[in-house]
């Protein structure tokens, strides 16, 4: 049986059939797996938040190890005491605050609505952790993270992640040596909410000076680093009024 594959009618029919087959195949995959994927993403968020407050399975100096997925739900309940949603002056408690989509809130804020700002309060060994989720732009795509602060607004731990930064360069924001540098830095410079700068030409590569609002940048990842600095600065501004109230309580 020889089919004349050059005929226009054949071409059109072939294209139509192909689109239908491939489309339904992909739709089938997407819908049958979406529940599992969402569950994975939910657990990952919990792992990230716990990581920022220092609840993790890190064994050595080099690698990042989260609490394992089968334990994370229990650990999350145990360590995260309160989840708040800040909407202007109104603060409400919401146990699903960690599921708030920051990107969606950002677009809604642009449309003039009041932005919902989630904040998590954790407690470990008697001290409190205020964990701020943030989101910004790297070189290629979105970057995001969680920054855990203590009562004096000093960083206790961070977790950063990215969607598509360059492997070996910008992607290193999620490496231990980079994230560990933030611990001990204050987001305050005097009384100004300065955030933390990812600084090139910083004379402190081992990060011993903790009051300079600076951490050492990553070689070859200037734009990712700048994006990270901006992200921290902007997010700290958003939470300013709540952070003031923490300081006032002290």
């Amino acid at each position: 049986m020889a089919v004349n594959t050059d005929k226009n009618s054949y071409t059109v029919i072939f294209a139509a059939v192909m689109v239908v087959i491939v489309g339904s195949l992909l739709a089938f995959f997407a819908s049958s797996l979406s529940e599992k994927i969402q569950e994975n993403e939910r657990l990952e968020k919990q792992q990230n938040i716990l990581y920022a407050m220092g609840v993790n399975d890190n064994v050595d100096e080099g690698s990042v190890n989260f609490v394992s997925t089968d334990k994370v739900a229990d650990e999350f309940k145990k360590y995260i005491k309160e989840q708040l949603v800040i909407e202007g002056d109104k603060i409400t408690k919401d146990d699903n605050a960690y599921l708030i989509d920051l990107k969606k809130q950002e677009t809604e804020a642009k449309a003039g609505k009041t932005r919902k700002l989630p904040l998590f309060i954790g407690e470990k060994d008697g001290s409190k952790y205020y964990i701020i989720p943030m989101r910004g732009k790297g070189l290629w795509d979105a970057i995001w993270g969680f920054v855990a602060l203590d009562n004096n607004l000093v960083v206790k731990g961070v977790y950063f992640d990215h969607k598509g930064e360059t492997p070996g360069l910008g992607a290193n924001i999620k490496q231990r040596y980079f994230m560990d540098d933030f611990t001990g830095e204050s987001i305050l410079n005097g009384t100004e909410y300065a955030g933390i700068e990812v600084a090139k030409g910083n004379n402190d590569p081992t990060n011993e000076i903790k009051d300079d609002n600076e951490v050492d940048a990553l070689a070859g990842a200037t734009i990712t680093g700048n994006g990270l600095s901006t992200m921290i600065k902007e997010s700290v501004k958003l939470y300013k009024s709540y952070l003031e109230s923490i300081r006032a309580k002290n």
Partner: protein
Amino acid sequence: MALLSKKDTSLILDPLADNNPITIQVLGICSALAITAELKASIVMALSVMFVLGMGNVVISLMRNIIPSKIRIIVQLVVVAALVIMVDQVLKAFAYELSKTLSVFVGLIITNCIIMGRFEAFALANGPWRSFLDGIGNSAGYGLILIIIGFFRELLGSGTLLGFKVLGDPIEKTGLYAIGYENNGFMLLSPMALIVVGLIIWVQRSRNKALIEEN
């Protein structure tokens, strides 16, 4: 009967050296520059391309007699994109950690010219088994170069291999760094990947003069 005839063996071995997709055909250069700053990324990329090219070649080869020639490029694109997305979804559901490592590469796999090149040049004219071997061979040749570049860029740029500090600690000044060695930060930038590719091409052609084109 041997599993692979002599002709089949050459399908796998030729792209490793004398018909290498990167150094001879100069395909797939963009991803060779983009992701070779560390060895691990090179290896992951090599394996992903091997999978997609092997599978894709078989699918295209099975369809080769019914694909209308006017829209064959579109059909090839649809096949690659669908394959990559399906794999990505399955990984996201069952191997979430792995899929996070791969996420950056998904777009790069779809646009890799080696894949379209092999579909067009080989799979459209050959049977599935031979096409599969051709896919494996070409992606192995591609992966080999990627791994060589990744090895040198990570070693000279960061002083590490697969994340292990093989040359000592640059900040604590141990190992090689104790005698004044410094990492070459330039190796981390894409232009140096191009120069490394150039060096590989130089070495290869000076060892095998038959590869030098006449001008």
